[in-house]
């Protein structure tokens, strides 16, 4: 009985099959399963997943665009700030230059005033010096003339006319001075 069953099983197992060739029922089930899967995926189950992904992508794109616009706004603000800073800098430079000009002018004015004052003082002083020199010279000249006339009158034992001698001396001195300076 057992041997017969084993024989039967062995007969069934020994039945030559080609392991390469497909079997009808497996083709049927494979095709049925795949078409079931394909149709369900195509018309029912893939769409929601894709929609979620598209939604997320859209949201990402929106967020990115928002971020881009925000960053471009920030860029604008930075540019405006820079422009204002530039204006302020130009203004400050102008103020500084004006102040410098003013200071320069003031300094020049002061310098000129000081120079003028110095010149005036120097002129005055040289004039005073010249006057004093002339006075001293005149005084010296009269004294020298007096001395010379008196000495001459003593030499000649005769009173000389002081005024005439003075004129002579005057001429001589002037000539000698001119000769001396010459």
């Amino acid at each position: 009985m057992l041997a017969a069953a084993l024989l039967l099983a062995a007969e069934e197992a020994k039945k030559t099959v080609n392991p390469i060739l497909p079997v009808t029922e497996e083709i049927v089930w494979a095709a049925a399963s795949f078409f079931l899967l394909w149709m369900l995926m195509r018309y029912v189950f893939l769409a929601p997943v894709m929609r979620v992904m598209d939604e997320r992508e859209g949201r990402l794109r929106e967020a990115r665009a928002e971020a881009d616009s925000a960053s471009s706004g920030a860029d604008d603000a930075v540019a405006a700030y820079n422009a204002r800073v530039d204006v302020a800098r130009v203004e400050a430079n102008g103020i500084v230059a004006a102040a410098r000009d003013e200071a320069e002018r003031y300094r020049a004015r002061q310098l000129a005033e000081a120079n003028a004052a110095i010149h005036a003082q120097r002129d005055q002083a040289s004039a005073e010096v010249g006057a004093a020199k002339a006075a001293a010279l005149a005084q010296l000249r009269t004294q020298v003339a007096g001395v010379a006339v008196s000495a001459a009158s003593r030499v000649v034992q005769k009173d000389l006319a002081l005024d005439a001698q003075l004129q002579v001396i005057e001429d001589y001195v002037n000539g000698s001075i001119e000769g001396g300076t010459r």
Partner: protein
Amino acid sequence: MIIGALQFPPIENVVEWPAWFGQGQAYAFNKIAFINLLAAIITIVIFAIAGSKKQLVPRGVQNIAEVSVQFIRNEVIAPGIGHGGERYLPMLISMFFFLFFSNITGIIPLFNMPATARMATPIVLALLAWVWFIGVGLKHHGIRYITGALFPPGVPKPLYLLVTPIEFVSTFLVRPFSLAVRLFANMLAGHILLVTFSVLCITLWGFKPLVAALPLSLFMLIALTGFEVLVAFLQAYIFTILTAVYIGGALHPEH
């Protein structure tokens, strides 16, 4: 019975499964059919859950679905089809998931059988891809698609004697065949490798003089299991991207 000898089971015991019901009918439901159905159902459940959640920050199942959609978009459609490929996303993503789950059952305990190690699933999908890319070519370019593929421009006239048969065979005959055989043979080879090392482990366990070699065999078994995960993913990916490349070739035949 030979004690201790390595006895590899006959191939039909490794790849054929008895029907659960409907034995002998066209609708006979065996493990392969169950895996196929399960692959479809798991994919549908993943996308149903992912579609019903709609969180702004995806997590869990929603993440899986969205990452796979991104993956198919960026890694399959973008290089394979180019522009205008978005409308083939449902088919390609179904294809990828169906094949991946059919492949991965080869290393999941209690299944231990990739559904694609039987020719049925690969041939169905390969024929579908074949019909699909020819259909796309005919729809977008009419009969000029066929003539353009058979008589590529820029070839001297006499050479058409040589080129046209080659183009016909390589484009319209070999493509579905190679697509199916690539997937099928990869998965069958992986399955047979796993079976071989499992049988070796069992034999060594029962054969005391060589039981010291058992860890080596077990290590190989574990390493191959890890390798099969990679193969399961890679073959699903390659099948999908080749389908995309064929569709892209039919859509933009000038490239």
